[in-house]
């Protein structure tokens, strides 16, 4: 028997492309704009969200039959906040360096609309295993976009990738810079992230016409 049925596989694959949380549902834009100036930060954020969303979906799904619907949003907030704080504290004690890198993201993870959105739309009404897959899938779809945007912004904005200079040295004018290339400082500013995300949305919809909404 296969580990994942076809339906289960779709839970993971759909959010990667045709139902991507950022480019199709336009959720989680705030953090996608804020932290994608560097590839490394994008990767860290993608992994953090993967962890929190996967685990959070499981917790919410386990509790779905006992959560009173009047306060379900508050319960969801408490679960995600508690998870993030637990991770933060454990990292602070056992992986201090990593925890410092993550410190900036703690607030952004808690308020990430994808997390609340998946809790509300999926985990509250589905079983544990399916919720877990849904969480992983959506976080991966979010992460992919973050990493693509981070890649272009760091490459074009700073001429580096993961902090390593790949286009030469802009001050000593080596590599590409020797023929007059300049870094585009605009790429480091948040509005350019919005434009890069917009371009991704354009590319995706022109490749798959079914995604274009009618109005």
């Amino acid at each position, binding site marked *: 028997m296969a580990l994942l049925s076809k339906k289960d596989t779709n839970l993971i694959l759909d959010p990667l492309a045709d139902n991507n949380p950022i480019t199709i549902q336009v959720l989680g834009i705030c953090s996608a704009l804020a932290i994608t*100036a560097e590839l490394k930060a994008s990767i860290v954020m993608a992994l953090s969200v993967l962890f929190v969303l996967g685990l959070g979906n499981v917790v919410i799904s386990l509790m779905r039959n*006992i959560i*009173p619907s009047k*306060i379900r949003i508050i319960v969801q907030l408490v679960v995600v906040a508690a998870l993030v704080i637990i991770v933060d*504290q454990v990292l602070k004690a056992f992986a201090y360096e990593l925890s410092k890198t993550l410190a900036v993201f703690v607030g952004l993870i808690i308020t990430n609309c994808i997390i609340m959105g998946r809790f509300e739309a999926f985990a509250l009404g589905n079983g544990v295993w399916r919720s877990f897959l849904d969480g992983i899938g959506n976080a991966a779809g979010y992460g992919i976009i973050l990493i693509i945007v981070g890649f272009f912004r760091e490459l074009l904005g700073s001429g580096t990738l993961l902090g390593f200079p790949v286009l030469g040295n802009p001050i000593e004018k080596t590599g590409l810079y020797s023929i007059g290339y300049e870094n585009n*400082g605009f790429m480091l500013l948040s509005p350019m992230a919005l434009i890069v995300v917009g371009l991704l949305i354009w590319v995706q919809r022109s490749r798959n016409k079914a995604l274009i909404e009618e109005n």
Partner: protein
Amino acid sequence: MNKESNIYTVLFACLMVIVVGSILAYLASALSAKIKENERFEKQQNILYAMGVNQNEDEGSVNFVPTDKVEQEFSTFITEQLVIEGDKITEDDQAYLIDIKKQLDAIKDGKTPKLPIFIGEKDGETFYIVPMYGKGLWDAIWGFMALDKNMTVQGVYFDHKAETPGLGANIKQRYFMDDFKGETILNGSRYTGIKVAKGNNDPVNTIKDDNEVDALAGATITGNGVSAMISKTVNLYKDYFESLRNKG
């Protein structure tokens, strides 16, 4: 019991708060010793970094003394830890644990702050290292600055809580911190500090007596925060610095 009744909702909320609260409280107290130790090591690493005791290669990234050696190195290189309280200067080997933020708050309340200063020796040179604390764009920034007795900067270390990655967060990059080396905090005989300046036509920072270093693109407010932090610190320690210079 009816899941939608008010009683159930209130009970559920109470239970949830108790459970989550206890888990977090347990975790915080179980891990606090380890976390405190990490923070202590970090402070020692930062102080040593500012005076040039680090594992930096010629190019690239910031490399501290490893955590398992830092305590020993700290006691080797830092020869004296002083606390300046008004006119009184006392020695205190725990001075590095003083929370500079609390001392700055004390000034606002009109009290006399306890200002720590660390004296380090390396290769026959003496370094005077002062802690700094200020605000960036989103949250706190802090650091250490190592000076010689002529008030020339020998090294700095900056850190931040939540500056924007890729922009303000670059204050803790080597290339930014290395720029401060050799700059003076004196302008004539006035203590002006060092300004993070835009458009000073000196991007590689060859002019060392202009009290300016080149700013980071897209991080104006963080840069201004660094300038303000340095000038605030220099003002606090002015009297002590003056006595150092007069000693010759």
